[in-house]
C-alpha cells in the first residue's frame, strides 16, 4: 500500500518491527494469505549471524514483504574508528536481503574499543556535526546507498551545545544527503525531558528528507520519560504523529515494540491506526485544496 511521499525514500506503508514472538506468523509461507502489515523492519544485528532460525525467518519474510534494516551499532558519533568488520557484515546482509533502506542513530555507543550497547547522546556542536557527517559519508560510500539517521531519546543535555538537535540533524542531511528516520516518540520523550516544544523539532526538519517514521511507547518515571518500547503508543505521540504527517506527508511508518510484546493483532491495529491518521490528514488536505479552487 503506497501513497505519494515528499521523500526520496519509498513510502512502504505501515509496518511493525520483526520480533521473535511474531516470527512464525509473519514468516508463514502460504502464498494465499496476505501479510497483515505492509512491511517490516529488522534490527540488523539480530540477523548478522551465520544461520539458524533468524536467517530462515528473514528469508521467508523477505519473500513476502519489503524489509528495512535498522541498526543500533554504527556508533556514528563515536570518536572510535568505524568498525570495519561490522560494516562488512552489514553490507553482506544488505546484499542478501536487498532492504528498502538502512538506518541507524544519531548517537555514540562505543569508546576506546568498547561498546555500551546503548544510544548515548551527543553534544550538538559544530565539532560533532563535522565528525558525524564525515562518518555518514564514509558509511554511505561503503554501503552504496544513502543512510537514514534517527534522532534518539535523551535524558541529558550538554551545556556547550550550540545547536538544537533538529538543527544538527537538518544540517547533517544537507551535508551528506542522508535521510532522517524521524522517531516521533523520541521527539516526544526528549521534549518532555528537556523542556522544548516537540513541534519545534518537527518544524526544524526539512520536508522531503524524512524517509521513515518510528512510533513507540514509553514509560513515565515521574522525573522523566523513559524510552522503553514496552507500551502502546500514547495519545500525545499519536497527536505528534498527526502533526508530522501534516508536515512531511505520507511517510513509511513503523510501530516499534521490544518489550512486553503483545499479540500480533495489537501491533497491527496500531499500524492501521497510523494508516488511518495518514488517510485523514490527506483527506483534509484535499478538501482544503478543493475549497480553495472553488473559491471565486
Amino acid at each position, binding site marked *: 500500500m503506497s501513497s505519494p511521499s515528499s521523500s526520496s525514500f519509498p513510502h512502504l506503508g505501515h509496518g511493525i518491527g520483526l520480533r521473535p514472538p511474531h516470527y512464525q506468523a509473519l514468516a508463514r509461507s502460504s502464498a494465499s494469505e496476505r501479510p497483515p502489515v505492509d512491511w517490516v523492519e529488522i534490527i540488523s*544485528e539480530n540477523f548478522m549471524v551465520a544461520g539458524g532460525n533468524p536467517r*530462515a525467518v528473514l528469508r521467508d519474510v523477505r519473500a513476502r514483504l519489503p524489509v528495512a534494516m535498522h541498526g543500533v551499532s554504527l556508533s556514528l558519533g563515536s570518536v572510535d574508528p568505524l568498525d570495519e568488520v561490522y560494516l562488512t557484515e552489514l553490507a553482506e546482509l544488505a546484499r542478501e536481503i536487498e532492504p528498502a533502506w538502512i538506518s541507524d542513530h544519531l548517537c555514540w555507543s562505543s569508546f576506546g574499543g*568498547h*561498546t*555500551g550497547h546503548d544510544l*548515548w547522546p551527543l553534544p550538538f556542536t559544530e565539532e560533532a556535526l563535522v565528525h558525524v557527517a564525515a562518518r555518514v559519508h564514509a558509511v554511505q560510500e561503503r554501503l552504496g546507498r544513502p543512510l537514514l539517521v534517527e534522532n534518539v531519546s535523551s*535524558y541529558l*543535555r550538554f551545556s556547550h551545545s550550540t545547536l538544537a538537535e533538529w538543527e544538527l540533524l537538518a544540517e547533517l542531511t544537507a551535508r551528506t544527503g542522508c535521510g532522517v528516520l524521524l522517531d516521533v516518540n523520541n521527539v516526544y520523550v526528549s521534549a518532555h525531558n528537556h523542556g522544548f516544544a516537540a513541534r519545534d523539532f518537527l518544524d526544524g526538519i526539512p520536508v522531503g528528507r524524512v524517509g521513515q517514521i518510528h512510533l513507540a511507547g514509553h514509560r513515565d518515571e515521574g522525573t522523566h520519560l523513559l524510552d522503553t518500547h514496552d507500551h502502546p503508543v500514547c495519545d500525545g505521540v499519536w497527536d505528534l504523529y498527526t502533526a508530522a504527517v501534516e508536515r512531511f506527508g505520507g511517510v513509511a511508518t513503523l510501530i516499534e515494540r521490544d518489550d512486553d510484546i503483545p499479540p500480533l493483532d495489537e501491533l497491527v491495529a496500531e499500524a492501521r491506526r497510523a494508516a488511518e491518521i495518514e488517510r485523514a490528514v490527506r483527506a483534509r488536505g484535499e478538501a482544503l485544496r478543493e475549497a480553495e479552487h472553488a473559491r471565486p
Partner: protein
Amino acid sequence: MPGPDRWTPPSLREVQALLYELITAPAGVGPGLAARGVGPAALEALVIGDDRLSAVERLDIYANMYFFRILDVLRGELPRVRAALGDDGFHDLITDYLLAVRPAHPSLREVGAGLPGYLGQHAAGLERPWLVPLARLERAHRELFDGPDAVALTAEDVRALGPDAFVALPVALAPCHVILEHPYALGPVWEALEAGQVVTPAPEAETLIVWRQGLAVRHRTVDDAAERAMLTALARERATLGALCELFVAAAPADAAGAGQDGRADADGAAEAATAKLAVAAFQVLARWLDDGLLVAAPGAPARAPST
C-alpha cells in the same frame, strides 16, 4: 555552570571519555566521580541539571541502562548459572565481569562470550567449579542457535549407496556443533537446574555433544568410549564412513563384543564374531548420528583416515 572564562568546553573525545568512564563505573556515577577525586560540580559544568534531575541523576539513567540491559541478556542466556548463584550472586558476578571483560562486540549476542572463561577465575567459579562447564554449555546453546546452516546427511542418503560407496563416503560433523569435556556430570542435572532446584552435579567425567538439528539446539552425553573416539576424531578432520567404523572397532574395549571370554579370544570364530558384533555397534552409532543430523557430506579432496 562556571562562566565561559573559567570553563573551556571539552572536545568530543573528552566528553566521551568522561561519560564512558562514569556510565560504566561499577557503583554508579556519583561514586565514579568520587573515584576521580571530584564532586558532582565537575559533571554539572558539562551536563545540564534542573529541579527534576541533577546532572548526576541524568547520567545515572544511562549507567543503569548500561548495566541492567546486559544483566537481562545474560540472565536469559545463563538461566541455570543464575539460578545456582541466586539473583544477588549473579548480579555481583556480572558487575565484576563487566569490569574485567568490557563488551567490545557490536552485538549483544556476544556480550556473554567471555563469561565462562571469566567465571573460572571468579570467586563464584572457584567455590563451585562445576559452574564453569555449566556456563560453557549454556553459552554453547546460545551460540549454536544461530550458528551456520548445513544440509545433513540422512539415513536415506546413505542407504542409497552400495557397500563400496558407503565405506568410501567422506563425511564431516555438521558445522553447528561443539564437543564439551569436563569433570562433572551436567547432563543428569540439566533439567533440575533449569527448574531452579538446588542440585550439584556428580564429579564424574562427561563428554557432551551439543548441536543444532534443524532449528533446535540439542545436547546429549557420549558415554561410550568408542563413540567418543569416533566423535573426537571426526571433529578434528573429516573421514570416510569406513574409516570411522574401523576406528570404532579399534577403540572399543576388549570385552565390548564378548571377546576374551573364557580366555579363548584368539579363537578365529570368536574373533570374527566379535568383530562382526562391533561392526554392528558402529553402524548403530552412525545410524544415530544420521538420525540426529550430525553428519554432512564432506566436500573437496578424497578423505583421509582419521588419526587416533
